[in-house]
């Protein structure tokens, strides 16, 4: 359940660890820093704004640091930092009742930790949820602790009959987020957007 920041060059600020977060550079062959893509994060954030998303719930993990910072710095966005991702289901439901569009930012392990809320609230009560899920533990993953979650993310999404799509290139970010939001609103159900390594991580 812990979302680890590892490595030696984590910068701290009032937002916590942000920017140029280094992931396990001790075992990287050339000891070359890798970082979360600011360009992609901005594209995703702008796409959410274009969908009139006004509330974001989030629990930090490495790939989400820029997105969370962008939300924190935006006076028009309500950012709710969670203790556990499942809270975000209730918060998004409250926002939906209030007529406020929302999205959840979480790691796939956070999605796994939210399943009862998704089933017993979002599905039972037909609540639209736009879930942006960082897809850790897939091809290219260096952190051993992420790998089991990577194996089961898609099977669990399918078992829950949650429609999902990947964000894997900057060209399609805006359209796919808009399409996901459209389906969430029309079907009144959770939809998943899997943020992939190709999009979120820059070598």
């Amino acid at each position: 359940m812990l979302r680890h920041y590892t490595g030696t060059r984590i910068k701290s600020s009032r937002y916590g660890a942000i920017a140029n977060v280094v992931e396990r550079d001790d075992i990287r062959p050339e000891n070359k820093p890798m970082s979360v893509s600011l360009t992609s994060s901005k594209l995703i954030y702008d796409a959410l704004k274009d969908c009139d998303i006004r509330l974001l719930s989030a629990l930090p993990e490495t790939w989400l640091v820029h997105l969370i910072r962008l939300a924190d710095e935006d006076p028009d966005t309500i950012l709710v930092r969670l203790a556990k991702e499942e809270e975000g289901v209730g918060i998004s439901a409250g926002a939906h009742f209030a007529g406020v569009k929302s999205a959840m930012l979480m790691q796939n392990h956070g999605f796994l930790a939210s399943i009862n809320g998704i089933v017993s609230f979002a599905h039972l009560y037909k609540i639209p949820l736009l879930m942006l899920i960082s897809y850790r533990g897939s091809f290219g993953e260096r952190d051993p602790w992420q790998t089991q979650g990577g194996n089961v993310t898609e099977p669990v999404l399918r078992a829950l009959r949650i429609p999902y799509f990947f964000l894997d290139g900057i060209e399609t970010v805006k359209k796919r987020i808009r399409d996901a939001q459209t389906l969430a609103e029309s079907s009144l159900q959770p939809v998943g957007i899997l943020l992939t390594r190709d999009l979120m991580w820059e070598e």
Partner: protein
Amino acid sequence: MLRLDCLRSVYSELEDYLVVTIMGAVSAELQSLGHRPNFFYLLHAMGLASSTGLGLALCLPNQRVIVFDGDGSLLMNLGSLSTMARYRPKNLTHVVFDNESLLSVGGFPTATSTGTDLEGIARSAGIPRVVTVRDVENFRSEVCGAPQRNELTTIVAKVAATGPSGYVTDLSVLENRFQFQRYVQSSKRIRIE
């Protein structure tokens, strides 16, 4: 102290609130007093009633919101206290009916029966005002005083582990959900105009 008496003592005040309840006895007893369109009953997803109230309160800062939580539900989502305390919406009142029991599944004792102190946990989480009440008069006084105090408050109400004989009512979850949403959004429109 009976939960039903607590609910009855503030029922007329609830007209001005968005009300979110947990499942089981709390939902059934509030409905037994008379359902209203501003009442939302979360009949599953234990722990998320307080999160729902937080979402409502943050999105509608001019609207008073009250959550009727329970010890069993809150113990499933203690982190919610820290999240509520972090944003501390002034318009949110969080009532926890603590009967030291998971009543609706057969009355199994919760950890509050062996000393876990929800008031202490809520206070240490950073909730600005936390009180424990043991009689209906103090319960009513705390709930009715909330709008004037205007700060995030958790009220731990120690109640007897008794409830109605059944928990299913003739209000379907979806009917309740859409009626509540329609109420929230129509009341919002009225306020803005």
